[in-house]
């Protein structure tokens, strides 16, 4: 987009949207929310960046390589946490039998493995949303009248 007001306000607003998304992911075991809604917020902020600043600029910030790392890394971290439980106590994906520290209910550092799983899910959902948007928009660049430049 060529508009100067939209670009300035987007540059100011996107860090706050991402901060809110990280807050919702990390407090998944205290307040409503969790990994899926927080990941959607972070993905939406990156889609806003793509819409305002154009596709080539956004592809430099979130390239194909980073999308590969984020997608595979989310599932590998999830399965890795499950395998930790398997090696320690013989059950896949357990919380209290695998020795994760539970802490006081209501604090930020509580819940054992639940915040770690929420972080993995959040990264994966954000990367999925941005990858799908870039894939659906890409074909427009090669036409005669480019869509988003």
């Amino acid at each position, binding site marked *: 987009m060529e508009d100067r007001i939209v670009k300035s306000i987007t540059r100011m607003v996107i860090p706050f949207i991402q901060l809110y998304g990280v807050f919702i992911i990390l407090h998944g075991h*205290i*307040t*409503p929310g969790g990994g*899926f809604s927080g990941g959607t917020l972070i993905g939406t902020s990156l889609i806003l960046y793509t819409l305002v600043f154009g596709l080539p600029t956004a592809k430099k910030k979130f390239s194909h390589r980073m999308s590969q790392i984020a997608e595979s890394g989310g599932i590998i971290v999830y399965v890795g946490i499950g395998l930790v439980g398997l090696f320690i106590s013989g059950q896949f994906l357990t919380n209290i039998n695998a020795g994760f520290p539970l802490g006081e*209910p209501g604090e930020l550092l509580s819940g054992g493995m639940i915040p770690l799983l929420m972080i993995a899910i959040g990264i994966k959902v954000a990367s999925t949303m941005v990858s*799908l948007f870039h*894939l*659906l928009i890409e*074909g427009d660049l090669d036409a005669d009248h480019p869509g988003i430049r």
Partner: protein
Amino acid sequence: MQIIQVFVDNINFIGAVALFLIGLRTVVTKKNLIKRIMGLNIMGTSIFLFLVAIGNVTGGVPPILSGEEGVTYINPIPSVLILTGIVVVVSITVYSLSLTVKIYEMYGTINQDELTNLIREDDLHD
């Protein structure tokens, strides 16, 4: 008056059924491919509303542990089940939209009647 009382008590379920029928009518009647995909999405959303309305308790509080005694929480299990449902509906919508992009590249139109004629001519030529 009892009919109105029954209607107001089950307003969530009746709304879910109405959304389902709106989505179904969109899939059956419209000729544009993208509108029909949106109709599928609306049908999926209506089922989520139905599931969450099953778990509701009149006068209940959200299922976060509060320090007070004697509160009834709403049923948390249907809210967990719809998270998987949302992911499935998003997957179906995205895949259908990508196939629509390929259809537009190949045939130049996304109207169902023109597509039927074009595909029939393609089959006759092959």
